[in-house]
C-alpha cells in the first residue's frame, strides 16, 4: 500500500512554465507567471516565479537562479460520484477501487454551496478532488449526466 511518503520530483527552474506545479515555501503551487530578472544588467539570470497555492489560492513568489532545481509535487485530480452528504462531509464512491470515501469535507465556498444545492434537488453529482502533499480538496462540481 501507499506508505504516505510525499512524492516529489526535482525540476530545473528554467523548465517551469505557466501552469506547472512547483513547491514554494513548502506549499504545492501552480505557476501563474515566470519572468527573468537580473541583479544588474550583467548579472546571471534569475527566474521570478509567481504562483498560486493550489488549495488556498494565495499568491506566493520565489526568485531562483535558472539553473537551480526546485521540487515539483505529485498532483492528482480524481473524479468521484457523490452518494450522500453526512453533515459536513461528502460520501463518495471510488469506481476505480470500488470503495467509499467519507473523509472529504465540503468547503464553505461556491463549489460547496453548489454541491448542497444539487444534492437537495436530487441531482446526480460528480466532484473532482485535487490532492497533493497529503492535502485534498473539492475543486469542481458538475451534474453527472450519465447517471
Amino acid at each position, binding site marked *: 500500500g501507499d506508505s504516505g511518503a510525499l512524492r516529489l*520530483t526535482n525540476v530545473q527552474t528554467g523548465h517551469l512554465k505557466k501552469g506547472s506545479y512547483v513547491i514554494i515555501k513548502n506549499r504545492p503551487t501552480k505557476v501563474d507567471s515566470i519572468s527573468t530578472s537580473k541583479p544588474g544588467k550583467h548579472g546571471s539570470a534569475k527566474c521570478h516565479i509567481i504562483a498560486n497555492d493550489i488549495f488556498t489560492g494565495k499568491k506566493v513568489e520565489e526568485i531562483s537562479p535558472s539553473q537551480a532545481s526546485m521540487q515539483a509535487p505529485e498532483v492528482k485530480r480524481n473524479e468521484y460520484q457523490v452518494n450522500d452528504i453526512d453533515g459536513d462531509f461528502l460520501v463518495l464512491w471510488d469506481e476505480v477501487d470500488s470503495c467509499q470515501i467519507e473523509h472529504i469535507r465540503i468547503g464553505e465556498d461556491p463549489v460547496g454551496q453548489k454541491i448542497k444545492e444539487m444534492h437537495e434537488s436530487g441531482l446526480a453529482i460528480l466532484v473532482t478532488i485535487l490532492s497533493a502533499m497529503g492535502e485534498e480538496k473539492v475543486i469542481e462540481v458538475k451534474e453527472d449526466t450519465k447517471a
Partner: protein
Amino acid sequence: RERERERHQKYKITSSHLHQLFEDIHWLVLLVGYTISDSWTEGTASIPSHVTDYLARLEDSFSVEAIQRFISEELGQCNEFKGNHVHGAIFGLLELAVIYQDLLSKGACHFLSPQIYSSLMWVLARVSASYLMPKEHRYAYIPSSILLILGEESLVGRWLVEFLLEKVISGLVFFVGESTVASDCLTLLQCLSRNSKISTILLQNNNFKKLLEQFTSGALNLPSTECRRLFGGSLITAMSHLPCSDHPDFLEKAFGRVREMTIRQLSEPTVREVSSSPHTTNQILAALDTFHGVTTGLVTKVVESVFDMLVPILEGCVELMRYAQDQAPITRTVLELFCCISDSVILHIDKNQTHKLYDICYKLLKCYSENSHRPGIISLEVGVEDAKYDSMLLCLRLLSHLCSKDFLNFDMPDEYDDSTSKIVLIGLDKLVSHIDLDLLKFPKLSNEFFKLITFICEVYAEKVSNFPETGVDQILNMLQVGLNNYNEDITFYIFNAVSALSVYSTNNLIFRKKLGQIIKHTIKLISQQELSAELYDPAADMVFSFICKCREEYVSVVNEIVSEQSDPTVRECLRTALSALMPNTNTEVTRKDKSQFSKIFENFAINVYGVCR
C-alpha cells in the same frame, strides 16, 4: 574565487568597475553590430549601403595571405591588424569571442557578463547573414574585399564557420541555465544552417557531430522552450540542404531516439502515468518542443518525409490529451504543436497524408471537447479561466489552418474532396458548445472565433445550411450573440456570414426562418440607431441577399416587426418602408443590384430611425 577576491583587492577592482567595463564593451558590441550589418531573414541580409560605399572608396590594399596568417596565428593576441575598418570591426568581435572563451574555459563564468555573450552571438548572427559565404546571386552587391576573405571558397570563411560553431557550443556549455544566452547562441546556429554551403561545413564538422550526439543521448541541456524549438528547427534546416536520399538516415540519427522514447511514453498504459510524474511530463514536453521546432524549420522538399515521422507523435498526443488535459502546459504544448504542423504542412502534403492529418485533428478536437470544462461547471481551480482561453484560442487557430487547404489549394482534383469541410464543421460543432459569454469577453478570442465562423459560412455556406439541426442552431445562436454584444468588427463578420448563408439556404426552410431572426434584429438595431452608419453597406448586402433568396421569410419578418408596434400609424409607415426594400421581381444577387440597393437601404435607415420602440 579566493584567488580572484585577492586579485580584486590587490588591484582594487570593484563590482562597479566591472559593471562599467561590461557596459562599455556591451555598447561597443551593439554599435559595431548595428553599423556593419542589417537584420536578417532566411539566413541572409544585405550589407548596409554606407558600408558598401565605404568599401568602394578604398583601394583593395589588403592581403588575403596576411589576413589568413592573422587568423591562424594572431587572433586573440591583440596584434596590429592589417585590413580595412570593416575587416577590423568583424575581427574585433571575433577577438572578444576568443577572450571570452579563454576565460570561460578557465572557470571565470560566474563573473563574466552573460548579457555581453548573448549580444555578441546576436551580432555575429547578423554579421554572418550579411558577409559570410553569400550566395552567387548576391555577388554583384558585395565588395571584392569581402568576397575574397569570406566567400564560399575562402579558407577564412570556412575557418569562421567552425569558429562560430565553437562559440555556440561554449555558450550552451558554460552559461548553463541562462536561457537568453542559449537562445542567442541557437539563433546564430539557425542563421548558419540556413546557408547551404555553411550547412554542409557544419554537418561535416566533428564538434557539430558531438553536439548532435549529446542531443540524441539526452545530455544536451536546452534551458527553455524557445531553445528546444530553435535547435530542432536548425537541424531540419541543415538537413534540407542534404540530398533527399540522405534525409531518412539523418532523421533517424537526429530524432530517432527522442521519437521512440516519446512514442513509448505516449502509448497505453504508460500515458496514464504521465499526469502524476512531473519528470516524465517534462521529458515529453521537451520532446514536443523539439518537434515543434522541427515543424517551424520545414521547407517544401522535406515536408512529406518529416510529416510521416511525426504522425505517431501526433497520434500519441491525442492519447496524452485524454489523460492529462487538466494540465495547462500539456494542453498548450500539444495544441501549439498541432497549430504549427497544420500551418506548415497543409498545403504541401499529398491527399493521403491530408486525410491522415484531418483524422488526427478530428480526434484531438473530439478529445478536447469531451474532456474540457463545459459551461455550467463550477470550478475553484486556479488559472482555469486563463487555461481555457489559451486552449480555445489555439483550437480556433487550428481549425482556421485546416480551412486554408480548400481555400488556397488550386490543385482541385477531378472528384471534389469534401473532407476538409467535414473536419472543419465537425470540429467547430465540438468547440461551439464550450464557448460562452465569459470566454468571449476576451477580445482576441472573440475576434478569432467570429472570423472563423464567418470564413466557414462564406466558404462552406451550402454545407452549413445542411448541417444537423443542433449544429446549425449553435452557429446561428452564436451569430445572434455576436450581434448583440460585441464591437463593429464582429458585427461586420456576422453580416458577411449571414449574407453568404442566405444565398445558399434555398432548400432549408427552418434554416431560412432562423436567418430571418437575425435580419429582424438588425433592422431593429438600425431603427433604434444602435448600428453604426459605417456598417450600413454590409448590412445592406446581407438584407439584399436575404430578400432575393428568402423572399417569403422576409415578408414574415416584416409582418413580425410591424405587429410588434402598437401605434397604427407607425405600423403603416414601417410596413411601407420595409416593403419598399423588396424589388418587384425576383432578383439575382449581382454586384450592380447590390450597389443600387445599398443607396435605397441607406435612405431607409435614415427614415426609419426612432420608429421602432
